[in-house]
């Protein structure tokens, strides 16, 4: 049973997970917005400040027929679920969160490379997602350190 692993966390260990949950929620909102844009088939005009249309219409925006944004939303939802459970004292969730965030960071770095080198255009919503993933990594590392003290 999951509940067997449930323990009350001290506040100093809980806060990094609460922060990580909020970050995941922002990431989830971002990815859901991009998924809506993709599924609604909306083309976006090119703007002075953004290169989203380049990125969202590139062949890299779909993986095995699934919009990349939807996969991102699934990843952020998983991160949100695990951080929420970890904040409520489910230790196993905190442990599972580490490999998930590591994979998310690696994927984000690859997507950043694609935008910078291959597509040569940046999408602000994709950059926001990358920034959130990096922030998540930092917070999860802090949580890990505090938990092991």
């Amino acid at each position, binding site marked *: 049973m999951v*509940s067997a692993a*449930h323990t009350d966390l001290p506040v100093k260990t809980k806060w990094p997970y609460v922060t990580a949950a909020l970050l995941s*929620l922002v990431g*989830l909102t971002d990815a*859901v917005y991009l*998924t*809506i844009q993709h*599924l*609604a*088939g*909306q*083309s*976006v*005009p*090119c*703007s*002075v*400040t*953004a*290169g989203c*249309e*380049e990125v969202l*219409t590139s062949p890299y925006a779909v993986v095995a027929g699934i919009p990349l944004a939807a996969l991102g*939303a699934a990843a952020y*939802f998983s991160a*949100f*679920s695990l951080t*929420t*459970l970890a*904040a*409520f004292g*489910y230790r196993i969730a905190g442990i599972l969160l580490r490999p998930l965030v590591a994979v998310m960071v690696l994927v984000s770095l690859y997507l950043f490379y694609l935008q910078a080198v291959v597509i*040569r*255009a*940046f999408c602000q919503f994709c950059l926001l997602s990358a920034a959130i993933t990096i922030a998540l990594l930092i917070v999860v590392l802090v949580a890990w350190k505090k938990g092991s003290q």
Partner: protein
Amino acid sequence: MKRILPFIIILVVLGVAIGSVVYMTQTKSASNENVNQAGPVGPKPTPAPTLGPVKTGDPGADPPHTMGPANAPVRIEEFGDFECPPCGGFHPILKQMHEEFGDKLHITFREFPLANHERAIPAASAAEAAGLQGKFWEMHALIFEHQNEWKLAFDIQPIFERYARSIGIDVERFKRDMNSDRVEQRIFLDGKRARSMGVGSTPTVFLNNREVPFQMLPADTLRGLIQKELQAAGTQK
């Protein structure tokens, strides 16, 4: 309760996420269908976009690149960026409108290369340089129709020179003109006009000096707008 609470939070977030994707996707599809109908047909759950106010702005490059008679009742002015995919997508629509409406439609193309598109200025320069030899529209069409060829090419200059050769202009002069002050000035003046009219994205299209919202640029919608303007011009006479 405390043990169940995280699961409740997770389920609520999942519900909101899936709900918003389903709701927004359906709403946007419905509003797109309404836009494509371009008329008072069918129910309208969301307010339809409308044309913006009349704008004049700075003059822009002179003479501008135009198609159709200057006294045509309907005037379309596009601010475009050759590297922008939706501009590439709008190119055949505008061409279609030109073919359908002929002498009733006056079309102007203005350069608005965006700073985040690194090949947009060379592409605009190539079109303008061809324009100095009277072949702007031919080069304009080639650049848009082969957007994917030159956009990701390592060296774009030979590609533009090949286009220049294919439309029969003096390639040596074309190469010189691409880097000339005259071409630079034309692009600058069109950009100045764009900014004075509040243009911030491409394609931005004005119909008789009123901005057409991006969602209204599909062929069916644009055709409907042009017909409406023609009717209005007819009743005013």
